[in-house]
């Protein structure tokens, strides 16, 4: 009865609300409905913290009029008694593409790279599209809306999920009954950004995350410059960007590392993004908190891996296994740290998976209050729409849920989801709960009937004499229909039962036999059975509540530290000390390390409170420095243009890279992470210390000299990229020279204008090149053959600066005299050659010849494997060309420090320098020796003993996790197939695949 009544209300609402005042009406009379609807006797969550017991919610015209315990209900109210039920504000998803068709990659695209934009009148990069408006593409999707409504959502924010700058999105109520005139709450509710390129354009740039970051920075600068009327031409993108400036800016970052990268770009450009996270933020929550950003969190927690096959599961990394265990605790960690966050269904296959994941987050310690906040008030607040949505305060939209109880309880039924005063029935709340065990008699036989499952999808089980009969049940509108098989199982015959539920605790009706005979039917509910089921449930609950979240380590992978190690006072006794200074190699010498510095060198040293390390028979050296490395970065090349001076490797340090730890085990303490060699003017370097466990930011040297990578030869002219790559200038060494002359000429002109004080368009790329001209930035140039080496020195001469380092420099020995005259240093391979055409004349005597001519010569790796054996590579300079052992050792320590202008801090054992030292169990140049301890600034980051303990711990922790995953599978929960972790090892030639 009540239901029919409600339907009537709905119908009346339709008549009033959908008709706009000034629209003509041709299908009837204009009938205004000024009635109220009152929901009484409910537990009302006005906000997550303001809860009214036994209260009334009064709504009118799709909005909340009032809530409270003493609401005066006007006479023209439809009163709905919801005694014992709860009312919550319906949920908000602020990150979706609801109603927007997913942009599709164009088929039949050209195979060769495209370097220029396809559009005119817009920004120079196709992936920047602030002019896009999701409203133009919006088409209300009733089917998808239903999924959202079922999951409890009432309002979603939607946008075109494509490109780096994606334009504006809209905020829409999931009101299927009215048109856009009602449900579009804000057609420009936010502007969206990401690091990912558009699928609609093939433009190469940016080809890496660091490129995306650089592009965004330049775009903001250009927008500012444009807004001041400086541009002679029209740029609709920049105009739109400036127009959207006042909107909420939402950035799809998608991982802890990218969250911080996005925030960094925002901070530099005076924009505070609301960041879509990735779920791994708990790994370094302090950094996340320090960003001061608010977050949108997906809750697609990973399924357990299917670890039954122990062969396959042996490839799982501890990091991946931990992620399964730890990720569900991410929201709790956010809450504990008071970081603002909202939830989204983004990354879930369907909103249907939302509740189970949310329940998991709660099981892992998230409070229900915070959960509700993250679904209601927080997204409303982040969108600046708190007055409109997210709560049931007076004047808010009447967007609410009616539930059987606690909305975050598994057993709770979600009855109705009202949006803008429009009702959607998910489960008939007036349906009697008829679940339970019954007994009935038919034709002298006694049957047991058990009804269970969800009310809308009831399941039946019928037994007689302990034998189960086949049966099927349906239940709606107070009537139950059951079909059960007869005792003769050889025949396909059914007894049909139809019964009503008007009388409590019984089913009344009739049964029809296969013969057509009808008899009356009466089933009585049994009380006892219920209790035992409850008891069973409680037991399950208890099982579920014991959740173990394994502790995070720094970094959160194998061999990470439980707590970051601290600097110690260390006294090495009786070591053979390779000072790299005038003292040469000192036998039986003590070295004291204090406050992160080399404090004393001598014999018979003592120091209170110092940890004594017996180094008799062992060798103590300065830490190895790798001038040319590509470890610990999440991208290496920005090859989308022939110059990428605007990008910086400092933006993309990966503090979880196991290569850091492996390098430490090889006695390496510092590395320069160079940009790759995909283009003649590469990106800026990051010079890092291998402080395993520290965050990306803390790995980078403070106040280090500035460097940029240049490259020459086959790589920059794309010789080995396949025959299709013939469109990017330069394709020859002739072109490479002209490119440099062109860029430096422009940089010079730019710098003159900049220094003159006249207004100018700030260009990050030219700023960096001007730094080179002003001798504020050093070049490390990838080089092979003598012609190109000579050429670049002449270009530098022409612009009155010096090349600092030629790296690789395999034909350096052919022009060593010219290099010496120019004053450039060399950083080379010990013995690599023959891997491509331009290294045909590479010889292992190269280092010796350059060294003998008087060039500062280093030996580098460009390779994560070789990097951890650079001591052996130095020994090859002894073998090939007869360099003295002491000088050979400097080639991997002091000389690279000199090339990096860090020799005042590192590279030798000298009082006052950083305590970056390695204790070797034998002669450091010997293939037989290994590093026992690797120390940076007095902190022991690698220790052989700790390493062997860690191996045991890794084994134990993996066993524990495998056990937990097997339990999960046994419970019948979903699993995912084993994934073999691949961390791409980068070299000069690595092109970013992620973008």
């Amino acid at each position, binding site marked *: 009865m009540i239901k029919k009544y409600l339907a009537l209300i709905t119908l009346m609402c339709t008549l009033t609300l959908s008709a706009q005042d000034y629209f003509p009406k041709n299908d009837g009379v204009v009938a205004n409905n000024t009635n109220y609807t009152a929901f009484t006797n409910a537990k009302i969550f006005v906000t997550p913290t303001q809860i009214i017991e036994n209260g009334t919610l009064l709504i009118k015209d799709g909005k909340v009029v009032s809530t409270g315990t003493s609401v005066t209900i006007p006479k023209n109210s439809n009163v709905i008694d919801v005694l014992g039920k709860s009312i919550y504000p319906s949920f908000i998803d602020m990150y979706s593409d609801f109603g927007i068709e997913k942009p599709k990659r164009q088929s039949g695209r050209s195979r060769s790279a495209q370097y220029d934009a396809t559009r005119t009148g817009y920004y120079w990069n196709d992936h920047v599209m602030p002019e896009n408006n999701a409203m133009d593409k919006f088409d209300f999707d009733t089917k998808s809306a239903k999924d959202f409504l079922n999951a409890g959502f009432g309002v979603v924010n939607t946008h075109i999920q494509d490109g780096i700058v994606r334009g504006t999105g809209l905020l829409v109520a999931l009101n299927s009954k009215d048109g856009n005139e009602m449900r579009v709450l804000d057609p420009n509710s936010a502007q969206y950004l990401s690091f990912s390129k558009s699928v609609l354009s093939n433009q190469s740039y940016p080809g890496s995350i660091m490129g995306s970051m650089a592009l965004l920075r330049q775009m903001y600068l250009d927008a500012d410059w444009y807004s001041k009327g400086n541009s002679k031409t029209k740029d609709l993108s920049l105009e739109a960007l400036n127009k959207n400036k006042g909107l909420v800016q939402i950035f799809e970052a998608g991982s802890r590392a990218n969250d911080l990268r996005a925030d960094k770009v925002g901070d530099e450009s005076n924009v505070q993004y609301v960041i879509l996270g990735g779920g791994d933020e708990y790994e370094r929550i302090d950094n996340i908190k320090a960003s001061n950003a608010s977050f949108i969190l997906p809750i697609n927690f990973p399924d357990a891996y299917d670890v039954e096959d122990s062969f396959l599961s042996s490839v799982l990394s501890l990091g991946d296994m931990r992620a399964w265990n730890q990720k569900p605790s991410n929201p709790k960690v956010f809450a504990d740290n008071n970081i603002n966050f909202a939830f989204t269904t983004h990354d879930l296959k369907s909103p249907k998976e939302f509740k189970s994941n949310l329940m998991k987050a709660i099981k892992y310690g998230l409070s229900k209050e915070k959960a509700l906040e993250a679904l209601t008030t927080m997204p409303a607040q982040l969108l600046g729409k708190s007055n409109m949505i997210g709560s049931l305060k007076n004047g808010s939209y009447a967007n609410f849920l009616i539930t059987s109880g606690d909305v975050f309880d598994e057993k709770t039924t979600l009855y109705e989801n009202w949006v803008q005063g429009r009702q959607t029935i998910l489960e008939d709340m007036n349906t009697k709960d008829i679940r339970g065990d019954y007994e009935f008699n038919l034709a002298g036989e006694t049957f047991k009937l058990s009804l269970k499952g969800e009310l809308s999808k009831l399941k039946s089980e019928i037994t007689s004499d302990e034998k189960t009969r086949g049966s099927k049940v349906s239940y709606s509108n107070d009537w139950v229909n059951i079909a059960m098989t007869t005792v003769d199982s050889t025949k396909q015959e059914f007894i049909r039962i139809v019964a009503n539920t008007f009388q409590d605790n019984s089913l009344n009706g009739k049964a029809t036999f296969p013969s057509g005979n009808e008899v009356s039917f009466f089933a009585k509910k049994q009380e006892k059975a219920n209790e035992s089921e409850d008891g069973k449930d409680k037991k399950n609950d208890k099982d579920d509540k014991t959740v173990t979240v394994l502790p995070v380590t720094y970094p959160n992978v194998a061999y990470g530290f439980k707590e970051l190690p601290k600097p110690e006072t260390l006294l090495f006794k009786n070591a053979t000390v390779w000072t790299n200074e005038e003292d040469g190699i000192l036998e039986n010498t003590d070295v004291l390390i204090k406050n992160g510095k080399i404090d004393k060198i001598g014999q018979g040293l003592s120091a209170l409170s110092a940890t004594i390390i017996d180094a008799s028979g062992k060798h103590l050296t300065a830490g190895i420095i790798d001038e040319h490395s590509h470890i610990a970065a999440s991208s290496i090349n920005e090859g989308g243009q022939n110059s990428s001076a605007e990008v910086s490797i400092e933006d993309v340090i990966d503090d979880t890279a196991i290569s850091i730890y492996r390098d430490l085990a090889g006695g390496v303490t510092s590395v320069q992470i160079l940009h790759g060699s995909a283009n003649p003017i590469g990106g800026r370097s990051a010079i890092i210390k291998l402080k395993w466990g520290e965050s990306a930011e803390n790995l980078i040297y403070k106040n280090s000299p500035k460097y940029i990578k240049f490259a020459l030869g086959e790589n920059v002219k794309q010789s080995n990229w396949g025959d299709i790559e013939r469109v990017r200038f330069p394709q020859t060494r002739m072109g490479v020279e002209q490119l440099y002359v062109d860029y430096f000429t422009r940089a010079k002109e730019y710098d003159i204008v900049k220094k003159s004080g006249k207004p100018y368009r700030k260009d990050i790329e030219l700023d960096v090149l001007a730094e080179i001209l002003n001798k504020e930035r050093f070049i490390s140039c990838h080089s092979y053959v003598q012609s190109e080496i000579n050429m670049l020195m002449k270009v530098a001469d022409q612009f009155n600066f010096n090349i600092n380092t030629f790296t690789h420099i395999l034909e350096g020995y052919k022009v060593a005299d010219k290099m010496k005259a120019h004053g450039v240093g060399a950083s080379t391979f010990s013995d690599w050659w023959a891997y*491509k055409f331009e290294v045909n004349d590479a010889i292992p005597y190269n280092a010796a*010849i350059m060294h003998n001519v008087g060039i500062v010569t280093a030996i580098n790796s460009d390779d994560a494997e070789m990097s951890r054996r650079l001591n052996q590579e130095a020994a090859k300079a002894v073998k090939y060309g007869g360099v003295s052992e002491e000088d050979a050792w400097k080639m991997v320590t002091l000389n690279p420090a000199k090339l990096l202008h860090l020799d005042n801090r590192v590279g030798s054992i000298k009082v006052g320098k950083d305590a970056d030292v390695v204790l070797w169990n034998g002669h450091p140049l010997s293939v037989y020796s290994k590093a026992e301890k690797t120390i940076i600034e007095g902190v022991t980051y690698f220790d052989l003993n700790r390493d062997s303990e860690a191996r045991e711990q890794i084994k134990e922790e993996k066993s524990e996790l495998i056990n937990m995953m097997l339990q999960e599978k046994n419970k019948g929960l979903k699993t995912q197939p084993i994934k073999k972790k691949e961390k791409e090892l980068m070299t000069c030639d690595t092109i970013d695949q992620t973008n």
Partner: protein
Amino acid sequence: MKYLKIKVLILVMLCSSIAMPQQTPANKQTKDIAIMGGTAHIGNGTVIENSIIVISDGKIKTIGNADTTPITLQAMDVIDAKGKDVYPGFIATNTSLGLIEVDAVRASSDKSEIGGLIPNVRSQIAYNAESKVVESMRPNGVLIAQVAPGGGRIAGKSSIMQLDAWNWEDATIKANDGIHLNWPSSFSRGRRWLGEPSGLKPNSDYADQIKEVADFISESKAYLNGNRAVKNLLFLAMEGLFNGTENLYIHVDDEKGITDAVNFAKANDIKNMVVIGGYHAFKVANLLKNNNIPVLLTDTHELPSLEDDDYDLPYKNPKLLADAGVLVGIQNGEPANFQTRNLPFYAGQVVGQGMDKEEALKLITSNTAKILGIDKQLGTLETGKDATLFISEGDALDMRTNKLTHAFINGREISLETHQTELWKRYSDKYKNQ
């Protein structure tokens, strides 16, 4: 001092290059040679201090302690090796030497043929005896190499070559020593064009891929049992596996794959199976030992293949297998084959992990000779074996001290010059004269 030493060295090099032009293969031994006073590392785990080695007609005629072995040095060339070390020539396995000259230049590569199951394809005849990369092996002591093809499931046949010859025919020590089978991987990459995620996932075609090889073997056997009236090159090429004249080299790294491969070889009557790669072979060492299956391990200068692995697993891997009683050698299958000259240091690396130096030496001498089936003539410094050996100023397994002064292949004293030493001299002279 430093410069003086270099000058002397240069002088030595200049002389030798006049006497023996670079890259010209040495002539047949005509006069007996005695190497006196060196520390002889036999290659079987033993050492003879103050040794004497007499080379006659390309063979080791005598080897023993100089004090106790009576020799008449008349009519012999005598080489004073006091304070130096003498080793059997190092044997590199599973290489692409002579098949690839410059890795990035497609025209210079003959490593991989198409076809999938092609046991009839032979590396021997594509071997470039005049490769600059090949000659660069010798100054480090690498004098012998197995040259192996690399494409498809069954890649073809390898051959064993000595590295000082006018042509492939002269270079051949053993033609067609075995067939190379690339075992199916347990993991395969998702096919992105079919909408699968791109990472590595369990290979769902694994069983089918093994069956394809098993079927091929069955067909081969059936054919070989018949009258062979119609020639089938593919099936004929398989015969050596069943009569034991050729090894089956199975390239496989993972625990399950190795186990499956061992059972596969047994089930298919393969007489001699060798594991190449064998990263996780230590996990099934007992199985390998019990079935007498040797392993040619990937070189030690590699990164651990899994993130959580011991950082030094590749370093100690040969020791793990040797300790478990498995016959093990070291190989380097990289297309960047210039690295093969670092073979001695791959072995030296294991010493740092606690293996005895002479045991480590076996990894690149006697063990590999046994595995390749050339141990009757090569792999150790023993009477009657080929005089393929060299003298180093110091410990040849350590880059600090590996400096060759003489090297012999079948008693022929070969040049230690290369394209690289020539450039070294040319440019050193340039700056010396400035």
